[in-house]
């Protein structure tokens, strides 16, 4: 009987740790999402639109989940350094230059990236800013 109780307490503790870990990530995600939304509004929305719909052929939409997935290691670099190449999004070519935002800190870039990749119908999940910092050091 005693063994049974100890075992169940141990099991309960393990489950509690796992659950609380997930909670921490969910909290982080929510945190990034709400901060990211503010940054999006002030820096990105004027061209990319409130719902990530883009602007004609001047600014591409942010709703192409396939593009976001295949380029997920470059997104942070696009956000911070801008883009000056032809990008194919939803099968259409976009050639306009995107401006750089050098004033954004790594954590800002991470937050706005997480916001974009988990809004407008995208669902790529959480990326911590340590990961984003690494990506930013390897920008071409």
């Amino acid at each position, binding site marked *: 009987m005693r063994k049974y109780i100890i075992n169940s307490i141990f099991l309960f503790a393990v489950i509690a740790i796992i659950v609380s870990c997930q909670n921490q990530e969910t909290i982080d995600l929510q945190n990034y999402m709400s901060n990211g939304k503010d940054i999006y509004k002030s820096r990105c929305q*004027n061209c990319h639109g409130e719902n990530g719909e883009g602007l004609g052929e*001047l600014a591409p939409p942010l709703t192409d989940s396939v593009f976001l997935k295949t380029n997920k290691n470059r997104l942070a670099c696009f956000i911070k350094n801008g883009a000056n190449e032809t990008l194919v999004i939803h099968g259409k070519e976009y050639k306009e230059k995107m401006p750089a935002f050098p004033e954004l800190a790594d954590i800002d870039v991470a937050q706005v990236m997480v916001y974009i990749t988990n809004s407008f119908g995208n669902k790529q999940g959480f990326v911590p800013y340590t990961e984003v910092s690494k990506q930013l050091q390897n920008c071409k």
Partner: protein
Amino acid sequence: MNKIISYAAASLLFVSIFTACKQEKKLPFYGERHAEVVKDAAGVEKIDTVYQTIPNWAFLNQDSVLTTNKATDGKIYVADFFFTSCTTICPTMHRNLMTVYNDFKSNPDVMFVSHTIDFKYDKPSALKKYAKKLGVDGPKWQFLYGTKDSVYTLAEKNYLVAVGEDSTAKDGYIHQGYLVLIDKDRRIRGAYDGTKEDQVEQLKKDIPVLLAEYKK
């Protein structure tokens, strides 16, 4: 009995007051004004108010065609100042103006005029590319290129929109995001912040009001 009559009289009075107040809505006039003595059709002299008007102009449009005020004469139009490489307020302004353009696309009495303030880079070919990418085709929305002096004077003296070069600004220029509504007699009848959706909605409501003034 007396009470009933006085009630009825009072309510009649109210109704007549309220209906009397309903007059045709008119848009205000902006800018300088002065009084002038004019002769009416019968040759009788009377004093009239003269409002500020947009002077004659001539610029190259997105098709490199010399375009003058003849294009907008007899029409009401919305004017604004922007530049193609602007990444701050212009995309929002033109995103909102696009919705106005689409609403009045089929109305031959409404036009749109966008002046670039980037006299160095925004040559007609750059404007054409921009218009095409924005999704605008045809002469209804003119994108106009002119010298710094002519465009900046027109903006500040005539359309009452502040513009300027500023090397400290992110894109090199600063300007206000007003969409200015001009009537068929070249008078300023409205100015709406093109970056604010509610003001652009007001513009969409005011254009028919202004058009109605000319329907008699």
